[in-house]
């Protein structure tokens, strides 16, 4: 209790709380606008690459973090989006923006198809289904080489910047790819946030924590799981499409099992089931290999990143289940405490009429009192419990 006094207490929904949140959002937006002026172009394109990875991790987190269904095949959705954009723009001259939409739809559809077999199974068998799907994808790319360029790869995927002064300079294309990636990441975060903050999100979490109880409470299991799988796949697909236009070269090897494992590593390290942890994780899986390559030019530099990730995943599984996001939350909790808002006072007359029958009911079992407030209250309590788990 003594430490509680030393902490800064912020009431949820108060002017201070709101102000801090708005300030945080403004800071992020300001950083996004400032980066092109501060960083060298090649650093900026690295940031764009990291945003694309972060997007895929955000998508994976919807399925594996919030949904609790581990996927060992997310690189396939990433690749499917990338190749949809690649093939449509280079082979058929489709506008890249339209190809993004097609990629999203295709990935959603494939995600739904994969969701159905995964629905009927549990534990490692779900992982096996997604593993199989994830590994089939690169073999199909190699098989249909006429369309996809096969193992030599697909070249020249680009998205011309629009005719604006901002994008007209020497580095216009870098700026354009950067803004595409930032916008994509923001969109992915918003979609996941809006999905999870509400009735649907509570269903997803209830299904993860106790499937039987959730179904009994009236959660539509098939519908919820299928939508989660499809949305997660289409976010990864859009990330793939953006990857395609920013990298310009697609090879089946870029979408191997290793990429899926890196996405998983990003999700776990950043913090599964948190909103901004996966973004952090996505940046880490992009930048740690880059840094370790810059620090040392020995042949094992890329490998050292793998050792680091592997060890960190194991450590986090044991000691820090909520990842870096959870660590930051705990540390912040030492200084700041966000308190829920006091409930709005009910007029005293109404309160008396509500509480009295309940009191009599407790004490005199015979009285068949109106039990609606009791029911309401228990309903609220259980959803809160589901959210807190």
């Amino acid at each position, binding site marked *: 209790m003594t430490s509680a006094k030393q902490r800064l207490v912020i009431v949820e929904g108060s002017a201070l709380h709101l102000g801090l949140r708005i300030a945080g959002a403004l800071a992020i937006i300001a950083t996004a606008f400032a980066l092109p002026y501060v960083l060298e172009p090649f650093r900026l394109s690295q940031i764009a690459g990291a945003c694309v990875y972060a997007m895929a991790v955000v998508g994976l987190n919807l399925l594996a973090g919030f949904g609790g269904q581990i996927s060992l095949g997310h690189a396939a959705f990433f690749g499917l989006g990338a190749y949809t954009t690649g093939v449509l723009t280079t082979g058929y001259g489709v506008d890249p923006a339209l190809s993004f939409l097609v990629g999203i739809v295709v990935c959603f559809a494939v995600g739904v198809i994969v969701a159905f077999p995964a629905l009927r199974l549990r534990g490692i068998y779900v992982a096996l289904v997604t593993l199989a799907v994830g590994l089939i994808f690169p073999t199909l790319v190699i098989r249909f080489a006429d369309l996809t360029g096969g193992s030599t790869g697909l070249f020249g995927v680009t998205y011309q910047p629009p005719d604006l002064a901002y994008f007209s300079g020497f580095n216009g294309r870098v700026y354009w790819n950067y803004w595409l990636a930032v916008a994509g990441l923001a969109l992915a975060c918003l979609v996941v946030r809006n999905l999870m903050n509400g009735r649907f999100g509570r269903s997803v979490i209830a299904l993860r924590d106790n499937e039987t109880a959730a179904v009994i409470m009236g959660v539509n299991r098939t519908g919820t799981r299928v939508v989660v799988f499809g949305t997660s796949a289409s976010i990864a697909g859009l990330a793939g499409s953006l990857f395609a236009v920013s990298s310009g070269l697609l090879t089946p090897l870029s979408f191997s099992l290793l990429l899926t494992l890196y996405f998983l590593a990003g999700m776990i390290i950043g913090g599964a089931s948190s909103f901004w942890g996966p973004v952090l994780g996505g940046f880490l899986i992009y930048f740690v290999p880059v840094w370790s390559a810059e620090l040392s030019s020995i042949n*094992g530099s890329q490998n050292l990143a793998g050792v680091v990730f592997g060890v960190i995943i194991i450590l986090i599984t044991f000691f820090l289940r909520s990842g870096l996001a959870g660590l930051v939350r705990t540390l912040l909790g030492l200084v700041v405490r966000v308190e829920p808002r006091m409930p709005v006072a009910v007029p005293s007359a109404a309160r008396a009429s509500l509480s009295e029958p309940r009191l009599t009911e407790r004490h005199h079992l015979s009285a068949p009192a109106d039990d609606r407030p009791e029911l309401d209250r228990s309903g609220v309590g259980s959803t809160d419990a589901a959210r807190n788990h």
Partner: protein
Amino acid sequence: MEFELFLTRLVQGINNGAIYAFLALALVCTYRGSKALNLAQGELAMICTFVSWSLAANGVPLPLAILGGVVVGGLSGAAIERTLIRPLGRDAHYSVLLVCVGLFLAINALAGFIWGGDPQSFPAVVPDAPDDFVPVMGVRLRYQQLVILVVLLVLVAALYAVFRYTRFGLSMRAAASNPDSASLVGVRVNRVNAWGWVLAGAVGALLGPLIAPSTTLSTSMFFTFIIYACAAATVGGFDSPIGAVIGGLFIGVTENLVASYVGFIGDSLKLTVALVILLVVLMVKPSGLLGTREVERV
């Protein structure tokens, strides 16, 4: 002539299938006790093969070098079970899978860090020159392939005998089927599960040096085999050693025959055939051919 070609393809399928079965056997050993799908099994086998290679390169006779690798494999299996798997508890599929993913990344990268990314050639146990084969009905059975098959059959027979006829095997089956009751009647469930990991590590470490002469020794040598092994173990049932062998041989033969006789599939979709079989089995009979039914279909 046509029939001879068919036989050759069949034998080739059996040879590949034996490798899948071998690794699937290791997967089964860990799954029976800990209910863990050890994705890092292939990587563990790979790094043990590198240990054997280093020993052999430093003048240790090849059989002893392989034995050294096998011992390292068994010990690391035990160490992984004791430090990383057991503390997570029995029903932690998700965490165990994540730990295995972490092990996969870490072991793969560690091997690359120590031994470099270039593939190495590995000496064969038996003569492996182009003319070292036994002709049977016009089919060439190479010595090295025969060795793999024989070792596989001996291993399965031994494992079956141990599981079926010894007291240790009985406690292993008891621990796998009902850990709580087994520990109540005095079975040391944890120790038995640890032995499963020791066996798995040793089996994998034995497979590596047998296939390395033909695949060459590299950090990625087990990437596809582990997938095939997962498919084989699923087909056979994840807790049945004999099922793993049948599943491995079935997948090896099927993919080879389909790839040779269906023009559309060809060599490039071989892995896809195995994965489609895996998906079909998961849809139709998730417990596999010989596995005990414990998968809830909901």
